[in-house]
Structures are given as structure tokens and as C-alpha cells.
């Protein structure tokens, strides 16, 4: 293995901190809104805070290699705690602050944490509950003492008192701190992050200094992130993305990290800070767009008219301008006027007016949603990543942004697709190992360093962009051997406002069929405007006009699926609209609203058979669970529709 000579001496986070404290001494490193005012700390002050805390931890007896858990919302103090732990050669382990006590106990026990740095009484209480079972845990360091006046303080330490204690013993501890700092290198563990673990227990992903710093270096260069940029840190600290954005990249480029006043004030704080670099999951952008639409519906006629005129133009022109494509003079002037009257103020209201680089990831984003933000002139891009990769696997380059891909490999990442379609990568950012779990490490990362993502995808021939189609375990084959990826089609269906949920079947069958759930709000609204009377979800779902509308949506999806060279076999041949909404109470969805495909297939096997045996209607009776736990049943005769399918058109490149 070659060492990272390219980075020179800047190969650990504490060394980056020392550089920033020197080069950017007077530049703001952290901001936090407290008591209604933005408080700020320069890099020089940040370094002092971190060093005193590191010495405080050493005064408590923290030894190299100890694990220190950190739990709280995004506050500068906890970002400092991470680097303070690293400075003392310990390993920081951020936890999800809304985790229940048992979940925390599992992680604290698994990593044999010596200390927990916790935000307030709420977190301290959870840890005290499980403390008796944790032999290695020697104490809790708390930031906010409210409500804990009467607590037994033998194992509780105040954050600021600890810093003071560190400073008091500086004469003795500084030498030891310097020694520890000098012994660290690129191989030293930088952070350990627990993956949420959709199956089984969470796994501790060990990331080294090299993982984090090489990733930060490459991606900062990719997007030209520099000391003048700023971010708002509002996503969970235990999530790898926050660690990369708010620590890795921030330390590498020296940019400023802003922390909101509380979780609820995030939107106001975003507006006040106006970050230049911003990340949010698709559902955040979706919620924001909905709130804009609702407010526009309440606006005056004149404003609505203006909004329509300029947004229509912006939708056409905005993305082209972002991609540097030619735009006519008239359209360009209209866009500029719209910028003054509509899009500029709107961007400002959303807190996105200064965003230079914006990313979204995590799930598929609807093209209309994506285009809305691009048309405002916000450079929103997609990336694909996971904890094991220190986030970045692929990302979209400026000027090559599309709604349906996740971009080209990030700097220093190699990609490979295996025969079954699963995506593998190898990069400087790929994790060292799963903590105390050699089997899982072996299953995920092979000796040559290739890491399995568990996602199926392919690389587009022309553009080289990666497209993720589904979880690898959900991908199958139709009887004729063509690839079957249900989520790919389901996502396309769900982008229509009328469709709330869809479940596509076809593995080992000769064609694809679908169950559809209509969105009661959207379709109900449409029914009201078109004078269609209905008394229940079931009645609306069975209405012939609703069927017609959904059929049109499905056919549009088929046209689009038909254009896909690999997945054109996934066109939907027949569909029905379910007589009830899929519900987590009935076990049809997970608590996070994800479709449980196999359970639905078992439960509605009569419907599934009818879809495949060619009948036009089917009678069914379904057991439902009401919210108070009572059970009942509903019966219905459902119509089944055949849908037109299409041949792949040859499109000239």
C-alpha cells in the first residue's frame, strides 16, 4: 500500500486543525445561533476549545484507542468533541440522538465506550438507565446542566469544567498531547460510524484519517469548495454525510459550519445563514416545493399569473443556463426579469439564494421536482454514496446534471458492475473494516479492496453515468431472461401526484403487472374540480374516470421504460387499483413507509393470480386493522386494465 505522500503532513484531522488555526486564524470556523444571536468562533478559537477539551479527556484518563461516544444535536461543541477525542488518540463514535436507550446500550457495549459526551438531561437520562450493564463506561460528560442539579455527580462531568480541568493541568498534559498527536498517521482510525442496519444489528464502520482526508480533498477540488464557502449542519451527526461535510470537507477547505438554534428553526436559520454548499434528501425538497405550491394557491390572481409566466420560462431556460447551453436572447431577458420579480425572491425565501453547490441523495428524485430547483438557478446535483465509502461513490459534474442518474465516479473511485448487476467500488475512501465483525467485513470487502454496495445498477454507455435501479436482492429476471427491477418502475409511477404507492411484480413471470394506490389528496382534489362524487377511498379508487387517468399515467411510464435498453422488459402489461391504502398497521409497509413486496404478494395472491390469468374483474375480501386495533374486512370487485406497451424507439445520438 502506498502512503498518502500527496497530502504531505496534513494527514490527520488534528494536523488540519493546526494548519487552519495558523492559516485561517481569524476566519470564522463555526457559527451557532443561541439566545437569538449568531455566535461565532474563529479557527484559532476552535483550536483552543478542542485542545483544552482533549487535555480534559486525558485528565480523565482517556487512553489511545479508547472509544468516546458523542450524542447531541448539531452544535459546535460536539464537532469539537470529535476532534478533541481524535487529538487524544481516542476514537469518536457519534450516536443518533433520537435512539432509544437500548439502541444506545448496544452500540456503547459493542464499541466498549469509555465515556459519553452528551448534550443534556434527556440524553444523560437514557445513558444512566443502561449504565449499570456497561462495564467499560466510566462516565458521562454533559454540556447543558439544566435539570441535573440533584443528580449524583460521581460519574458526571461538565463539558466546560472538563475543559477548565484540562487547562489547569496544561503544564503536564501538553507534552503527552503533543506526543499522541505526533504518533498519529493516515492509518489511525478517524471515526467510527454505526450504519442504521435495515437488517440485523447495526455495524460499526471504521474510517481512517486517510479515508476521510483523501475523500474530502478529492471532492473539495471537484466542486471548488474553498475557505469562503459555508454549510448549515442540520442532518444527524451520526450520519456519515454530516461527518464529511461538517468536519472532513470543512477542515480540508477551512470553510464555515453553521449550526441551527434548534431542530425546528432550521428553515429560518438556513435563510439567515444562506449557505453556499447545501445537502438535503429528496423528501426535504419535496416538502419545500409543496409549501411553495400551497402558498401560491392562496396568493392573489395577479401574483399567480406572474408566477406561472416566469416559472414556465424558467423551467425551460434555467437548467440550460446552468448547463451552459445556448439560450435565445428573448428567453434570456425574460429569465433575467423573472429573476428580479419571481425566482430571485423565491430562492431567497427558501434560504437557497447563495447555494453554489447543492446535492441530494438517498433515494430517487422526481424529474419535475429536480427541474423545479434547477430552473430557479440552484445548482442541485445528485450523488450516490454510503457510509462504507466515506459517502462519495459517484457524483454529477457541473454541466452534466440529470434527474435519472447519479453521475460519474467521484475523484479516485473505481467502479465495477458484476454479472448479476451489483455495483462494486474501490477508492481511497473505502472503509477499513467493520468493528469486531470480520465475517461481515469479508462479505462486503474483498482482498483487492472492492466493496459491494448491495445496489444493482449499470453504467450508461454514452455518458459514463451510473444509474442505480434497485436493491440488488430485489432485482430478478423475467421468464424471457430480461432484467426485472421493480423499484425502477415504481419510482417512475410514484412521480405522478395521483399515485401514492405502487407495487410491481414480474420476477420469474412472463410479464410485469402492478398494484396501484391512488393519492387520496391529489385525486380527491381532482375529483372535486371535476364534479365527481365519491364517499370513500374505495369508491374513488374504483371510479372509471380514475382508472382512465391512472391508465394514461401507466402508459406514459411504459413509453419511458421502453426507451431503456436494459429494462424495457419491465413495462407494465396489466394493472389494478387497490381498494385500500397499503398500511404499516396491516404489515404491508414498514414503519418507514417502504413497501414489503413479499408480504403484499402473499396477502393479495388472489389479485395477483387474476392479473396473470387474463380475467377482467376480480372479487376480493381483505382483512384490515383499524387504528384502535380492531379488525374488520372489506370486500370489493376490482377492475383489471390492460395497458399498451411499446417497442424501443431508435433514437439518434
Amino acid at each position: 500500500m502506498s502512503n498518502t505522500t500527496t497530502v504531505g503532513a496534513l494527514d490527520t484531522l488534528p494536523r488540519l486543525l493546526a494548519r487552519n488555526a495558523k492559516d485561517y486564524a481569524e476566519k470564522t470556523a463555526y457559527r451557532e445561533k443561541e439566545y437569538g444571536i449568531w455566535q461565532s468562533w474563529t479557527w484559532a478559537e476552535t483550536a483552543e476549545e478542542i485542545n483544552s477539551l482533549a487535555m480534559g479527556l486525558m485528565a480523565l484518563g482517556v487512553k489511545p484507542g479508547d472509544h468516546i461516544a458523542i450524542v447531541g444535536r448539531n452544535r459546535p461543541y460536539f464537532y469539537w468533541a470529535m476532534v478533541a477525542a481524535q487529538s487524544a488518540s481516542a476514537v469518536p463514535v457519534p450516536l443518533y440522538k433520537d435512539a432509544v436507550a437500548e439502541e444506545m446500550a448496544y452500540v456503547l457495549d459493542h464499541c466498549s465506550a469509555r465515556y459519553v459526551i452528551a448534550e443534556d438531561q434527556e440524553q444523560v437520562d437514557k445513558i444512566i438507565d443502561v449504565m449499570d450493564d456497561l462495564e467499560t463506561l466510566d462516565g458521562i460528560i454533559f454540556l447543558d446542566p439544566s435539570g441535573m442539579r440533584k443528580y449524583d455527580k460521581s460519574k458526571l462531568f461538565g463539558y466546560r469544567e472538563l475543559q477548565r480541568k484540562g487547562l489547569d493541568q496544561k503544564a503536564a498534559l501538553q507534552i503527552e498531547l503533543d506526543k499522541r498527536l505526533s504518533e498519529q498517521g493516515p492509518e489511525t482510525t478517524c471515526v467510527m460510524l454505526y450504519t442504521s442496519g435495515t437488517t440485523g444489528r447495526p455495524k460499526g464502520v471504521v474510517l481512517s484519517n486517510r479515508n476521510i482526508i483523501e475523500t474530502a480533498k478529492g471532492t473539495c477540488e471537484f466542486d471548488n469548495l474553498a475557505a469562503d464557502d459555508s454549510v448549515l449542519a442540520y442532518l444527524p451527526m451520526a450520519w456519515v454525510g454530516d461527518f464529511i461535510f461538517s468536519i472532513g470537507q470543512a477542515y480540508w477547505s477551512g470553510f464555515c459550519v453553521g449550526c441551527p438554534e434548534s431542530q425546528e428553526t432550521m428553515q429560518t436559520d438556513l435563510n439567515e445563514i444562506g449557505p453556499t454548499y447545501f445537502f438535503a434528501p429528496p423528501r426535504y425538497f419535496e416538502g419545500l416545493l409543496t409549501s411553495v405550491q400551497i402558498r401560491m394557491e392562496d396568493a392573489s390572481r395577479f401574483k399567480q399569473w406572474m408566477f406561472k409566466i416566469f416559472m414556465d420560462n424558467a423551467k425551460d431556460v434555467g437548467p440550460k443556463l446552468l448547463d451552459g447551453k445556448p439560450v435565445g436572447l428573448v428567453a434570456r431577458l425574460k429569465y433575467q426579469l423573472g429573476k428580479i420579480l419571481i425566482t430571485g425572491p423565491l430562492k431567497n425565501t427558501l434560504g437557497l439564494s447563495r447555494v453554489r453547490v447543492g446535492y441530494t441523495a438517498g433515494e430517487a428524485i422526481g424529474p419535475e421536482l429536480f427541474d423545479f430547483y434547477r430552473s430557479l438557478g440552484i445548482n442541485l446535483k445528485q450523488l450516490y454514496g454510503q457510509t462504507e465509502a466515506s459517502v462519495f461513490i459517484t457524483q454529477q459534474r457541473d454541466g452534466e446534471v440529470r434527474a435519472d442518474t447519479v453521475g460519474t465516479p467521484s475523484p479516485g473511485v473505481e467502479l465495477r458492475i458484476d454479472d448479476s448487476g451489483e455495483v462494486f467500488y474501490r477508492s481511497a475512501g473505502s472503509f477499513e473494516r467493520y468493528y469486531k465483525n470480520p465475517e461481515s467485513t469479508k462479505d462486503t470487502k474483498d482482498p483487492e479492496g472492492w466493496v459491494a454496495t448491495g445496489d444493482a445498477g449499470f453504467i450508461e454507455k454514452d455518458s459514463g453515468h451510473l444509474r442505480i435501479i434497485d436493491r440488488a436482492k430485489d432485482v430478478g429476471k423475467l421468464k424471457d431472461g430480461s432484467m426485472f427491477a421493480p423499484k425502477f418502475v415504481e419510482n417512475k409511477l410514484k412521480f405522478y401526484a395521483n399515485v401514492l404507492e405502487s407495487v410491481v411484480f414480474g420476477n420469474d413471470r412472463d410479464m410485469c403487472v402492478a398494484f396501484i394506490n391512488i393519492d387520496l389528496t391529489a385525486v380527491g382534489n381532482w375529483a372535486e374540480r371535476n364534479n365527481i362524487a365519491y364517499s370513500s377511498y374505495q369508491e374513488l379508487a374504483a371510479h372509471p374516470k380514475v382508472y382512465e387517468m391512472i391508465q394514461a399515467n401507466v402508459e406514459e411510464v411504459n413509453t419511458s421504460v421502453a426507451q431503456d435498453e436494459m429494462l424495457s422488459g419491465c413495462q407494465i402489461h396489466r394493472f389494478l387499483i387497490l381498494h385500500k391504502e397499503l398500511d404499516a398497521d396491516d404489515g404491508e409497509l414498514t414503519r418507514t413507509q417502504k413497501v414489503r413486496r413479499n408480504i403484499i404478494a402473499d396477502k393479495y395472491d388472489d389479485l395477483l393470480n387474476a392479473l396473470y390469468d387474463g380475467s377482467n374483474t376480480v372479487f376480493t375480501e381483505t382483512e384490515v386493522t383499524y387504528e384502535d386495533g380492531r379488525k374488520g374486512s372489506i370486500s370489493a370487485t376490482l377492475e383489471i386494465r390492460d395497458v399498451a406497451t411499446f417497442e424501443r424507439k431508435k433514437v439518434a445520438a
Partner: protein
Amino acid sequence: MNAIDSYVTADGRTIGAAVMEMKNITLRFGGVTAIKDISFDIREGEVRAIIGPNGAGKSSMLNVINGFYHPQEGEVWFHGKKRLAMKPHQIAKQGIARTFQNIALFKGMSTLDNIMTGRLTHMKTGLMSQMMWWGGAQAEEVANREVVEKVIDFLEIQAIRKTPVGRLPYGFQKRVELGRALAAEPKLLLLDEPMAGMNVEEKEDMSRFILDVNDEFGTTIALIEHDMGVVMDIADRVVVMDYGKKIGDGTPDEVRNNQDVVDAYLGVAHD
């Protein structure tokens, strides 16, 4: 219990001497006797609850404590001195603040401005200097705003700082009202049914805030409450009233086992 100077609560706090003593209070409205010959005290640093069925005279009692009603008979002693009839603002200046059963906020004003009004008794600059925003007034407003911001932080209502109070849900309005009372930095805080109309979660939040106020600022708290469960959880001592009379006084456990109290709450079979 009234005879001793101090006592130690179940959770280990030492409660000091009496801040306020009610001595043989009788209050009449025309021919109606709302309070009949009631005596009790409120001690420094304790959470004192007054409970009783509807119409027992609890709110009248609270109004006597904060000087809004003047009893026909009996005496109110505050900090060892007999209190004479006073205007409400004079009471406020003595360090007594209260909240109301039916929220009494300025609906059109923001949360921040509402809580700011709680600082009124701490403002010394005159009208002219406030209007002209002169040095003194400016410094004073900054200092007051700081206190208000600490209250906002304490009650975790940063997100509604600029929201007009009329647009807030009920639970939040109650919290803002508590905030306004806290902004006055009272020695004695009177709460009139702080949990009325709240759901379980809101009640839990409010209980926590009341205990934290008591714990953190050492504020003495007297509260009226309907919800027996809440009272028994947070109060150090409880006075029970029924038909204007005191029928019980003591720790939650003592009161819970008092036969008169059980009868008043659950009813009693007539022979």
C-alpha cells in the same frame, strides 16, 4: 408541619421558612362566602399546590395571594410583614408573577414581544427616552432582551419567537404565558391551572418546565390544578379546598390518605 421552620422534601431539597402566610382568610362576594377561615403558608423554594373540586374557591384563593382580592377577614403576611391592600403593579414589583386560567396574552403580538412585556416592572427609563431610543433606553432594552432570550431558550420556544401568539396552538400559548411570568424574574410564581386543556405530552412538558423553574432558579411556586395525577407528582405540599373550606393540608401522600379529601373527590354515600 406548620410549626417547624424548615423541612426536607422527598427528593432531598431543604425547604426554608414561610414566604407567605395566609391567616384566617375569609372572602365574601355579597352574600356568597367564597373562602371560609382558611390558613396555610407557602415556604421558600417549595412547589405548593391548591386543589379542590369545581367551585371550591381555588381561583379566589390565588387572587387573594396575588392581592387582586382583599379578604374581609384575616391577614396576608408576606416576608414576615403584614400586607396591606395594594395595586396589582405594586404586587408585581414585590416579585410575584402569575399566569391565568384563560390565557391572557396579546394575540396580535409575537411571542418575543409578549414575553418582553413581562420585563415591564424592570424598566426604568422614561417614555421620551424610549421613544427616541436614547442611550439609556437602548442599553436597557438589550439587557431585557437578554433575559427574555434566556427564557425562550429555557422553554425551548426559539422556533416561535417571531410568530404572532394568536396563531399558536393552545399548548404553546400556555408556554408563552409561563415565559412572560418568568421574564419578570419572580420570587413567587403563581400558576392558575397550567395544564388545563392539555394532552398528556403537553402536560409532561409543562410539568418538567415547572420543576425546572423551581430547581434552576429556586423560584417558589404556588399552583392550582385540576389534574390530581400531575399535582401528586410535582407538588411538595398540597392544600385541599372544598366549598371554600380547607379540608386537607400536607404532603401528597398525606392528602391522598385523608378521608375528607377522598369524600370530596369521590363523593360520599348519605345515610
